[in-house]
């Protein structure tokens, strides 16, 4: 892919926004955020008759030719727009460009909320230990609030339709198809998990906009530990909100290498906080199904990253790193959930 440059962005914006003049792009650099998409930050200044002098801090995300997640710019862009203004803090979307010819990949521009933290590893720093309970409360009650947002109030036309009855099977089918499409060798543990999951499907208590990757590392928080924005919505879809809860408590996201899920709280604490935020009960049998499902979904993602390498479609270090680091741990998590460890 060609390098993104400030000049190229200025030229593009001048053509795209004919009302803008004196466009200046400065400080463009790539951020270590997002395993599936490239993420850049820059400052944008322009003037227009309608808006006067404007100065914006901007995040740019670019779709790569191949990734570990089969999503696209429109999907994430529309997910952000769908939830914006519904009580879940997210950045404002600014622009979507789906014509890949401009930058060798579709791009989106969004408000850049600077001055906050988003590192899952910061939670292992002893200096943050006393704030972990508050951050956990912020994370899982926000997730619960997302679960409680009526889907009837949201424009979810960007994603696959779902019903309370079919969402579990639909999501399993989707990720098994991804596993099949990105085959990197036999998976006896995950295939046994799939057979177990196919013997019974939970019915969702309600439908929700499922974030799809809601965990430590994918939200911004301030020095006090207050959650400021939820990021990385490229896997958002309509479904069972228990999927988000299950994702956030999976073993491979125990970043402290202990029993704290997402490096923040025990499984039981996380469930209690989610229930407080959502006003719903997390049915234990249904949650257990979704936790095992998460092992299939995550392994499909790690395998897709490996497949990108194996087929020569890409050489992002994070895809190889994630696969080396997480695939065996995911197998172990599946064994534990099936009572076979």
């Amino acid at each position, binding site marked *: 892919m060609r390098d993104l440059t400030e000049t190229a962005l200025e030229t593009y914006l001048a053509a795209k926004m004919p009302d803008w003049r004196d466009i200046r792009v400065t400080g463009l650099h790539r951020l*270590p955020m997002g395993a599936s998409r490239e993420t850049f930050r820059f400052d944008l200044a322009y003037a227009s008759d309608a808006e006067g002098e404007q100065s914006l801090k901007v995040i740019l995300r670019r779709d790569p030719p191949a990734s570990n997640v089969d999503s696209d710019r429109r999907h994430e862009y529309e997910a952000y727009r769908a939830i914006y203004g519904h009580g879940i803090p997210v950045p404002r979307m600014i622009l979507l460009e789906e014509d890949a010819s401009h930058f060798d990949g579709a791009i989106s521009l969004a408000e850049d909320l600077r001055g906050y933290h988003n590192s899952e590893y910061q939670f292992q720093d002893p200096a943050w230990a006393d704030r972990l309970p508050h951050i956990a409360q912020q994370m899982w009650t926000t997730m619960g609030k997302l679960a409680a947002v009526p889907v009837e109030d949201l424009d979810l036309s960007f994603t696959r339709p779902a019903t309370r009855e079919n969402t579990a099977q639909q999501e399993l089918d989707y990720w098994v198809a991804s596993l099949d499409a990105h085959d990197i060798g036999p998976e006896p543990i995950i295939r046994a998990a799939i*057979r177990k999951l196919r013997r019974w499907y939970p019915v969702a208590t309600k439908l929700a906009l499922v974030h799809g990757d809601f965990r430590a590392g994918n939200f911004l928080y301030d020095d006090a530990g207050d959650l400021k924005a939820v990021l990385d919505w490229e896997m958002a879809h309509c479904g069972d909100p228990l999927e988000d809860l299950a994702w956030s408590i999976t*073993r491979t996201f125990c970043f402290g290498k202990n029993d704290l899920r997402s490096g923040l709280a025990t499984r039981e604490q996380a469930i209690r906080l989610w229930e407080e935020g959502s006003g719903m009960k997390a049915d234990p049998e249904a949650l257990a199904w979704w936790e095992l499902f998460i092992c299939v979904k995550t392994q499909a993602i790690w395998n897709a990253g490996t497949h990108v390498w194996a087929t020569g479609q890409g050489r992002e270090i994070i895809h190889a790193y994630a696969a080396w680091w997480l695939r065996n741990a995911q197998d172990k998590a599946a*064994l534990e959930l099936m009572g*076979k460890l």
Partner: protein
Amino acid sequence: MKPDVSLAVAELANRLRTDLLAELTGFRANVAAMGAAMLDMVADEWDGAVARLVRENRAFRALLDQGAALYATPAPGGDDENLRVSALTAENDRLRGAITDLMARLEDDASAPAQALLDAIWAELARTVNERRITSANF
């Protein structure tokens, strides 16, 4: 190769973290940190990979032999004469594929021999997961 590969690679990872990482920021720092972590994993794997794969392959063949006897089907065959990691991994994949198929068959067979063999396969899979665990794993 001398000095010891695991030792040298682990030290290289350490130098990346302590000397070079501090000079980098943002995306470049992240790539360097991942590179150091991957070198740690290589150091973990280097010395034991062949032994682990050979042990796994022998264990899988023994289990598949039991399955072949139970269902009067051909034995898995194969060997570990070629000790290159790529060859052992290819054989490991072949055997894991056969194990996957055998597990699916055993799950639908309530007989005591079938369930005993299924339990033995689960125990072996748990052993392989524990043996493959890298030091930096979250779980």
